[in-house]
């Protein structure tokens, strides 16, 4: 993975010193909260319902064990002993004191972590496929390009005061595990006819109150022109994106207003005027970054591990874990292991400091010191030997981290909601917990199969409800929490926006309604259909009937 050099480190030191100075001025009363707000937001510090929240950037969701241990230490020392992983592959601490933040930033900087551009109207932390470098279906490693973008976008002098926040995601695989089409810019690595590497560039995706799936701006961009092309898109957006209404300021609104043809024409025209030689990254620097992601030294192993086969034959729990949480690796004898942060009854995405320490140890010992965060709020050990799977599973089980539910009904994405967030209209966490309990029986959850349930506590859609197989949106109706269900969304390669099922439900009716939807699906599905496939075949009606007949 990419290791910071002296330049990257001095940059973080400068950033941390700057913020220490600003916090001192705020605590001394030299800055009002109004003046301080934009400064703290530039460092990922939000003021929420009960305390400050610090959002830490995890570039392309990639961490080493030292960084995970440091996050655990911060959680223990400055928070209530846990942290919350987000749908942006970031980590949030929800109980932070302002006076501690400069020390926390220093402690993070020591292990090459920071909170730069985790909020504000700038280019946010770049996200990527959490299986990067481990999956066989990859055309090129998206981390290389994500790191190129991370550096380029860091304190970009032209693009730090955009109309609104700006999110970029990269994947090198055909299976989209990074919700690429819901981003302001999405980058799909593609192989050109000449065998060279390039990108399909999509733009104008987004969620919030007006969801859009991104559209293709260019079906093939030679990879070496990534920065000049992204610069062209950002420049068109910076100049022409709306600034009169915060809800219409994202690039998706500009793309929709212009139409994709006209937007593309403007981008291509601007790109034609950019001096690519100055704007694109020199080959030598690209090579340097690429070398940091060179394939680690995998052992030469047989396809099949006898030790692992024997262990799983003897352990139904391990067998179940393998069925749901273990994915194929590109190298024989290795596997990708998903660590679920969705134990039944827990807060989705939360990890205790002790759990983080366990994951750090396992990552260091069994996964080539490589740990990933997924946008579905889980963790990944990307390089585990099949021989080691029984030991890894046992250690995860002991730490309450072996829930075998990846992509099943209880693997719910949820934003922090009204339990923490100042923007929320309704709670998300208790709803997720109620639903997960309905699928606590792992046999039932497996029988239902892939089902992506996502909950947002307000229209800002941090819980990705628009692109859920079953989406749940919390709304406030005369002081009472109501929940609007939608069906048929997807944030994956078959991306689509869900359709609203019917009138909102009170909190206690949500889990029973999900139950009814699932029962209806089990009744009408054919063959290997997932919930989403069945919905796409039969439409809303049977599901509507199942929920509202039951509610009456």
């Amino acid at each position, binding site marked *: 993975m990419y290791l910071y*050099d002296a*330049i*990257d480190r*001095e*940059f973080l030191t*400068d*950033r941390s010193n*700057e913020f220490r100075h600003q916090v001192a001025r705020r605590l001394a009363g030299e800055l009002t909260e109004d003046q301080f707000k*934009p*400064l703290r937001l530039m460092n990922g510090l939000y003021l929420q319902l009960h305390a400050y929240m610090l959002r830490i950037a995890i570039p392309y969701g990639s961490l080493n064990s030292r960084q995970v241990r440091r996050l655990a230490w911060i959680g223990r020392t400055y928070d209530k002993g846990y942290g919350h992983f987000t749908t942006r592959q970031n980590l949030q601490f929800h109980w932070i004191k302002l006076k501690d933040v400069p020390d926390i930033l220093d402690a993070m900087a020591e292990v090459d972590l920071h909170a730069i551009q985790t909020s504000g*109207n700038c280019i946010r932390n770049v996200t990527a496929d959490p299986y990067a470098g481990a999956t066989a279906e990859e055309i090129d490693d998206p981390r290389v390009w994500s790191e190129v973008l991370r*550096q*380029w976008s*860091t*304190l*970009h*002098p*032209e*693009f*730090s*005061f*955009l109309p609104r926040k700006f999110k970029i995601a990269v994947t090198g695989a055909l299976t989209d595990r990074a919700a690429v089409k819901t981003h302001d810019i999405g980058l799909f690595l593609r192989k050109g006819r000449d065998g060279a590497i390039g990108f399909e560039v999509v733009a104008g995706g987004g969620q919030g109150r007006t969801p859009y799936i991104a559209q293709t701006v260019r079906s093939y961009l030679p990879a070496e022109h990534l920065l000049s092309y992204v610069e062209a898109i950002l*420049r068109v957006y*910076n*100049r022409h994106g709306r*600034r009169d209404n915060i809800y219409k300021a994202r690039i998706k609104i500009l793309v929709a207003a212009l139409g994709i043809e006209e937007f593309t024409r403007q981008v291509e025209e601007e790109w034609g*005027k950019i*001096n690519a030689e*100055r*704007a694109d*990254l*020199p080959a*030598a*620097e690209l090579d*340097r970054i690429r070398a940091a992601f060179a394939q680690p030294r995998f052992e030469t192993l047989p396809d099949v591990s006898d030790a692992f086969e024997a262990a799983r034959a003897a352990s139904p729990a391990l067998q179940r874990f393998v069925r749901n949480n273990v994915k194929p690796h590109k190298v024989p004898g290795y596997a990708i292991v998903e660590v679920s942060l969705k134990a039944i009854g827990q807060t989705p995405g939360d990890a205790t400091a002790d759990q983080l320490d366990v994951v750090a140890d396992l990552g260091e010992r069994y996964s080539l010191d490589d740990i990933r965060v997924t946008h579905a709020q889980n963790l990944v050990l990307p390089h585990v030997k099949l021989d080691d799977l029984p030991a890894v599973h046992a250690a995860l089980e002991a730490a309450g981290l072996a829930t075998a539910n990846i992509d099943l009904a209880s693997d719910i994405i949820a934003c922090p909601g009204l339990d923490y967030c100042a923007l929320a209209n309704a709670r998300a966490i208790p709803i997720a917990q109620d639903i997960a309990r309905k699928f606590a029986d792992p046999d039932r959850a497996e029988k239902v199969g892939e089902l992506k349930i996502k909950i947002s506590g307000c229209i800002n859609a941090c819980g990705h409800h628009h692109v859920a197989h079953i989406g749940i949106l919390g709304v406030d109706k005369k002081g009472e929490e109501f929940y609007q269900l939608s069906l048929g969304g997807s944030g994956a390669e078959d991306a689509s926006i869900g359709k609203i099922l019917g009138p909102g439900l009170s909190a206690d009716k949500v889990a029973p309604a999900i139950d009814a939807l699932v029962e209806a699906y089990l009744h009408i599905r054919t063959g290997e259909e997932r919930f989403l496939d069945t919905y796409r075949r039969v439409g809303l009606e049977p599901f509507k009937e199942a929920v509202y007949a039951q509610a009456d």
Partner: protein
Amino acid sequence: MPKLIKLTGDPSGKDFGAEWAEDGFVHVGDDDALPEGDVILSLARFQAEGEILLSNSRRVGVRVEPDQEVEALAYDLPRLSVVALAFPKYRDGRAYTSARLLRERLGFTGQVRAVGDVLQEQAGFMVRCGFDAFEPADGATPEAWTKAAHRFRHVYQRAADHRRVAFEERAV
């Protein structure tokens, strides 16, 4: 009391600074009577009256609002002394693009001045995009401005200041 901060030295190097400067220019509104001497006009007024003003031996600057394109001035730039880019709110970042285009695409070598809601927290970004004069709205001094503009020892992307960027430092 001067209210204009000007950059001194070469922003591509480590030794540039900032100082108070006497401002010889007067901002003239669209309905104001034209005073004697050097003036900064709106783009509309410049397009209507600029030819005459430029021919009567005074220096002329143009104020460009964020929703106006600096490309409109492309053919006039060699004769202009100042382009003043307006920040109606500090959060409105369009003028950063305008400044880079003036410097890097249109080759403007006169003064690029930041006017409006101009705060010292923006100093680094502004200098990097090619601004070299500032009318601060927050009472910032040249010392504070210099310090803010030098806060980061390294930068990651090429811009109008032609500072050596991280990948160039690494290549040495």
